[in-house]
């Protein structure tokens, strides 16, 4: 299991390759990548991501451990950035490795659902009109009930 919280960009291809090359017992590798989406008007200048150093790493580790206890996983990777990002920049990635694909897919979805509303990150959208904190959505909280 590897948990990374960093400001710098990460190399999606290199990370995915390194993660997938580890253990031939894992017949399934799932990766998910989150990208800064531009606003409908196309005027997002910057997305600022704030986090709670210390708690972030703890929360992500706890979520990844929970995934490992629920599914048969060979490995888990979570990378999440903070700081100032531009539209199109990659914010985060998760990768799961498992002997079988259902475990890898389900665990990746579980990780995404939980880190959306249980990992201490906050997003702020900055446009030429000003800055707005992104509000949490009820559907993100509701998504946790399915697990």
């Amino acid at each position: 299991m590897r948990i990374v919280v960093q400001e710098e960009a990460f190399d999606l291809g290199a990370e995915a390759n390194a993660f997938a090359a580890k253990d031939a017992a894992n017949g399934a590798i799932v990766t998910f990548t989150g990208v800064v989406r531009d606003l409908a008007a196309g005027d997002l200048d910057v997305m600022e991501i704030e986090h709670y150093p210390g708690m972030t790493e703890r929360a992500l580790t706890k979520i990844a451990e929970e995934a490992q206890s629920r599914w048969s996983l060979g490995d888990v990777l979570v990378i999440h950035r903070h700081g100032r990002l531009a539209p199109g920049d990659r914010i985060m990635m998760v990768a799961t490795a498992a002997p079988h694909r259902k475990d890898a897919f389900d665990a990746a979805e579980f990780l995404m659902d939980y880190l959306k509303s249980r990992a201490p990150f906050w997003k702020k959208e900055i446009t030429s009109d000003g800055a707005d904190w992104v509000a949490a959505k009820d559907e993100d909280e509701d998504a946790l009930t399915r697990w």
Partner: protein
Amino acid sequence: MDVLYFAWVRERIGLPKERVETEAATVSDLVAELSAREDRYAAAFADLSALRVALDQELSDFDAPLAGVREVAFFPPMTGG
């Protein structure tokens, strides 16, 4: 104890972190104590349903006791991913 604020809570209160000497028994008591200090605290804590609290970096709730707690953090619902 150290009290930390994040996102719009930090902006509304105007600082990221402060040291608070308190006898508050629970998180709610601490919130009442801070809100009584100044308007900016009262404004930040006006609607507790819009806030989350962590005690020593674990999510908790407003009824939780503060005995032995070293770090309290207040923030809006999280928006990771």
